[in-house]
């Protein structure tokens, strides 16, 4: 029986959600590492007998993991170590052995069965991004890892705690395989405390409600959420919507990485088909979904449902109307032993393509692309004790895309993680840097009837000799955040050393950059996409942007057709300029993507990826590289920043087609 009294359902829904938030607060209070205290890279939830979360915190912790599944890990443990007993706690961090519960190795996941009269009434779950699980580099994450074996200790689902006692064997392995064993054990203790909080509070609920009622509420809450999601899906025009986008490259080569999706909406159901996405990469950007409707592949759909119906409860029922096809061996469903450490870079782009596909169905609801990048800028410098101080300067993000009726938000983006920044004064107190500029980037937001959010600029002087700058996750230096409904893309990001000085040096993506004392490092993040024809933007809005400094007069004239005469708005000249402008030929994607698509058209890329996936795993990457490199050989070396001429294009397309027919 899942039909529950509508009053009781609301009460129990509230209570269960509150228990998960209490678990999170306990974890945050007792945890000690940066990931717990500052960036809140953790979460807690309650799962039912099916291992899916029927209650998930709304206001604290990582928001996107509501779709994770515990059951495969539970079954794996039972198969090898016997039935679960009161006081047992399962630990795992391995994406493959946990069938996608963990998504990269630094995330430690725990599951505890909560018993009532000898029966499991619910599971408590929590995870923490811990400081280090060994592997090739400190903190265990590097985009350049090629196999999961380089990323640290793999912990298959295992009983860390048996009947309340920690397993010494497991602990010995944990301690021996981390650069920070004490910090990890602190996190593990905080996780255990949060699971204990959940256990106590569920027991307290059992004192107030009939156990049968609590069990059926779990199903009823999921049904309730599923009903909400279906109602939202029914409000979306039925049809098939395809969208694709690129990561600038895979961090190890110059070749862009394609992600593609076709969304089919019919009868209150939705199917996501990622066919057309590139094969898995030989770097650490793969998303280990195990072919399931994984959190990283479905986040935007949750956001859409919760935007259109904020009263929907947050639980796995929201995903019930959803099915998925993520081709095995692709970036979004890699085969073991693909590395997965920086999967969030690809997840941001997956968010973008889902957004783009939904926008085809709901152009007036969905925003244009957000800046699509999260760059934790880190400085490492020698310190007085002979070691190195490693510290985040700022987690640099961009803005949000514009949508109908609203400009994007400047310098903020909650897309995939909603991290707080660091006060410049605490950074300067802890590192030898002087921050010269931390601000918004004028003219970076995509022009449109509604303007995209501005990207950011961070410029700092290095004061300590022997310092390094690290910046993982730089993206959108090439392919811009796209606009929508005629809106223009945002400006791409960039990195410059000593800008405007004789020693100026423009760089692309960096992994570890050695710098000298006195060097000035300047990062710029992309602006977000605009919405609608910029020539239809209200002149008052453009003028307000000029007054505030978000748009310069030059850009106003070029992108918005707005004319100032001696600093004063010239209505006549503006009308004339706007009138005379031919319909914009530029697409919403920007010149680089247009140049790329002029050769690597979506249809051809779909064919290419189908052909590659038919090859054995070991051949796909090398074959792809060979094909793309030979096609690119006929094009300007700066392609797609500079477009190909007609001859070059014809030759290149011919080559590509030849390859495709031979695959």
């Amino acid at each position, binding site marked *: 029986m899942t039909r529950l009294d509508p*009053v009781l359902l609301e009460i129990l829904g509230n209570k269960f*959600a509150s228990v998960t938030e209490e678990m999170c607060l306990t974890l945050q209070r007792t945890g*000690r590492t940066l990931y717990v205290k500052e960036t809140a890279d953790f979460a807690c939830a309650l799962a039912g007998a099916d291992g899916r979360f029927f209650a998930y915190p709304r206001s604290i912790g990582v928001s996107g993991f509501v779709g994770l599944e515990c059951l495969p890990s539970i079954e794996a443990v039972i198969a090898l170590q016997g039935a679960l007993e009161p006081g047992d706690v399962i630990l795992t961090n391995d994406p493959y052995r946990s069938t996608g519960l963990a998504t990269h190795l630094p995330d430690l996941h725990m599951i505890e069965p909560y018993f009532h009269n000898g029966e499991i009434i619910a599971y408590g779950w929590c995870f923490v991004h811990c400081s280090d699980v060994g592997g090739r580099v400190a903190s265990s994450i590097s985009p350049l890892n090629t196999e999961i074996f380089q990323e640290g200790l793999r912990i298959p689902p295992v009983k860390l705690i048996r009947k309340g006692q920690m397993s010494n064997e497991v602990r010995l392995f944990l301690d021996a395989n981390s650069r920070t064993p004490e910090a990890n054990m602190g996190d593990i203790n905080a996780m255990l405390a949060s699971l204990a909080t959940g256990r106590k509070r569920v027991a307290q609920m059992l004192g107030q409600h009939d156990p049968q009622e609590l069990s059926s509420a779990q199903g009823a809450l999921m049904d309730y959420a599923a009903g909400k999601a279906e109602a939202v899906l029914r409000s979306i025009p039925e049809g098939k919507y395809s969208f694709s986008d690129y990561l600038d490259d895979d961090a190890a080569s110059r070749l862009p990485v394609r992600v593609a999706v076709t969304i089919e909406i019919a009868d209150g159901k939705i199917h996501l088909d990622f066919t057309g996405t590139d094969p898995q990469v030989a770097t650490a950007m793969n998303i280990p979904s195990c072919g399931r409707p994984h959190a990283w592949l479905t986040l935007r759909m949750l956001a859409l449902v919760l935007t259109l119906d904020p009263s929907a409860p947050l639980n796995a029922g929201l995903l019930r109307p959803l099915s998925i096809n993520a081709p095995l061996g692709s970036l979004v469903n890699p085969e073991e032993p693909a590395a997965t450490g920086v999967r969030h870079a690809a997840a941001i782009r997956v968010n973008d393509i889902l957004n783009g596909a939904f926008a085809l169905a709901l152009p007036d609801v969905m925003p244009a692309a957000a800046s699509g990048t999260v760059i934790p800028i880190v400085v490492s410098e020698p310190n007085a004790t002979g070691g190195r101080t490693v510290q985040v300067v700022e987690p640099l993000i961009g803005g949000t895309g514009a*949508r109908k009726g609203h400009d994007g938000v400047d310098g*903020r983006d*909650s897309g995939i993680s909603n991290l707080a920044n660091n006060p410049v004064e*605490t950074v300067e107190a802890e590192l030898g840097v002087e921050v010269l*500029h*931390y601000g918004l980037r004028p003219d970076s937001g995509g022009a449109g009837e509604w303007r995209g959010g501005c990207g950011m600029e961070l410029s700092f002087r290095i004061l300590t000799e022997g310092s390094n700058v690290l910046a993982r996750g730089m993206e959108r230096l090439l392919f811009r955040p796209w606009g929508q409904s005629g809106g223009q893309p945002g400006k791409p990001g960039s990195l410059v050393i000593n800008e405007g000085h004789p020693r100026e040096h423009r760089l692309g993506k960096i992994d570890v950059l050695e710098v000298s004392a006195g060097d000035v490092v300047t990062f710029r993040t992309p602006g977000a996409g605009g919405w609608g024809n910029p020539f239809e933007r209200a002149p008052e809005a453009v003028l307000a942007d000029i007054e505030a400094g978000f748009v310069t007069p030059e850009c106003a004239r070029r992108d918005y057709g707005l004319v100032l005469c001696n600093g004063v708005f010239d209505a006549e000249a503006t009308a004339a300029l706007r009138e005379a402008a031919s319909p914009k030929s530029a697409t919403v994607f920007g010149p680089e993507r247009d140049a790329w698509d002029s050769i690597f058209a979506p249809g051809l890329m779909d064919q290419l990826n189908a052909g590659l996936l038919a090859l054995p795993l070991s051949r796909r990457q090398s074959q792809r590289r060979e094909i793309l490199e030979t096609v690119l050989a006929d094009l300007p070396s700066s392609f797609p920043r500079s477009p190909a001429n007609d001859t070059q294009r014809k030759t290149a397309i011919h080559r590509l087609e030849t390859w495709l027919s031979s695959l």
Partner: protein
Amino acid sequence: MQNTTPRTAGRLRIGIDVGGTFTDFVMADTQTGKVTLYKEPSTPDDPSRALIAGLEKFLQREDMSPADVGGLMHGTTIGLNAIIQRKGARIGLVVTKGFRDILEIARCRMPSSFDLHADKEVPLVPRSHVIEIDARFDDDGKLTRNPGAEELDRVAKALAALDIDAAALMLVNGYTDPQAEGRIADALSDQLPDLSISSAALIWPEIREYERALVACLNAYIQPLMGSYFTRLTAGLERIGVDAPLLVTASNGGSLSVTSAVDRPVETILSGPASGVMAAVRQASQSGMQDIITFDMGGTSSDMAVATDGTAGMATRTDIGGLPLALPVVDVNAIGAGGGSIIWADAQGVLKVGPQSAGAHPGPVSYGRGGTEPAVTDCYIACGFINPASFGGGSMPLDGPAAGAALESVANRIGMRGSDTAARIAEGALSVASAGMAGSLFRTMAERGLDPRNFVLLPFGGAGPTHANLLAEEIGIERILVPQAAGAYCAMGAAGADLRRDFVRSLRVELTEDSAAAAETAFETLQKDGNAWLDAELPDISERRAERSADMRYAGQAYELRVEIEAKANLATYAEAFHVEHERIYGFRDSAAMIEIGTIRLAMIGAGQPLSTSAPSVTGDPTQDSRDIYVNGAWREAAVYNRAGLAVGAKLEGPAIVEQPETTTVILPGWGARVDPHGNLIIERTPA
């Protein structure tokens, strides 16, 4: 003028709280211990009007003369409302070159991760009114960019070109040398005699540039409004012949002189709720209860606060209309529904309470002011908890049948059939509201590692005493204290407030023999500043004390702990105080690790006169009546008592209702109540 009864001039202390609907007055007679209440409809266009008129009427009613008033304590929400509605002064901000976007970027977070349509808060100062100056310090306090005459001139001209009433200055690392930043502010002021320019570092020298800039901006933003309000108010008091000192309550639970409040209005923003909590803490301590949870339920929402060992919890990061406030304030958390929260059913037929509120206008259906959707207050009526005829002491009769009809239509939408649907849906909605409040309350306690079941619940506000027993039952709390003045509690808190001001200094040093001595010197400076401030506020204050604390951590840790520091501390005492606190919270100490001191804090307190409330003299028969109330799915007969008629020691058996003009207290079946020697109603679970 001599009266027939002997009087002492200045024996009355009067607390005043200006709310949106009513201005509440509490009069405490320090001679007799008698406490009386009065309410006057507020005059939002100029709140001082209702205050003066109400005070005059109240004195007349109580047969007191203006000369009897010995002290006035006053809380106001003028500043808060101006900030929330963004209706403050036009201000400018001067910041270090490169940081023009400090308010736009804020701390980079969006209010929601899931809402694709979320927007950020509106900055207090538009970007066009933020001016950069080539001036900054390094983190050691060296003025590495010292603006010359030309630069100061340029900035002053830029400020002059803006159409603004006030300005703030924030230099990067200014917290390291507040006096030096103050001198730059003065240099700008010299060129702009008509513009007040406040230095962020002088107001609040704590590390974190955004939060500090915001403190200065908020201050400038509400200063002109508050200044003119207090001018009108003091003129009004003079007119009616009240010449007692006027104090203004502050967000930290203390109070300030009018001069201080006009200088630093930012310290008064959250004074209303803070006063209520302080009153609760004092009242409970008087009755021997040290660990309490306050529950303030008003029209739009309900708030809670926690006190342990007789001390209210403080917060140093509060949200004010979407903006973070870094000043220490009494930690008050919104936990859910208020009397005006709307009862509705969603498309799936699930019953919801709030977050929309009918507020005071149109208000619940029973107010008869055009509200069509039932609210929580309508549920109290449908369940028989409040008597529609005697609401507000009979001054505002409510429409019970209309409330019932509106509830029935919601019952219909969730498929509820049969008899008593209005009462049944009302009880269901009250359970939903209680579960929501309990959830928020449990979370607030989990954050602090406390178990709410060991606490006493202390309700106030118009609906607090009505809902408190339901909430206590839901949480598992065993005891409730309902004070006499529950319906005008923030005014009560104001009447008993201490003088208090907080001082900070960010040091950020490793703890050594030398730095411990330096911290002591810094504390002494703060103490000197504190004493000088108290002397200026009320020179004859009898009892003064300083509370000292420091934010500390082990080197390399990602978080700091706030540790109380005793007077005349040295290296060993600093270290031990921190180790002990770390051990208490995390279960271990690291004696070998280097310790760092971040910010040191000193609260300077001048104690107000203790306000001991005595039980009121009994007037009239306690038992008025009886009526049926709907609880646990059935109608039960409940005795109805008149609070004014309950003598000390009186014992009541639930189900029962206790009525007073400002509020109604509900005592559920299975609970009993008694009146303690201070006139409080103590509700406890009846032993099974």
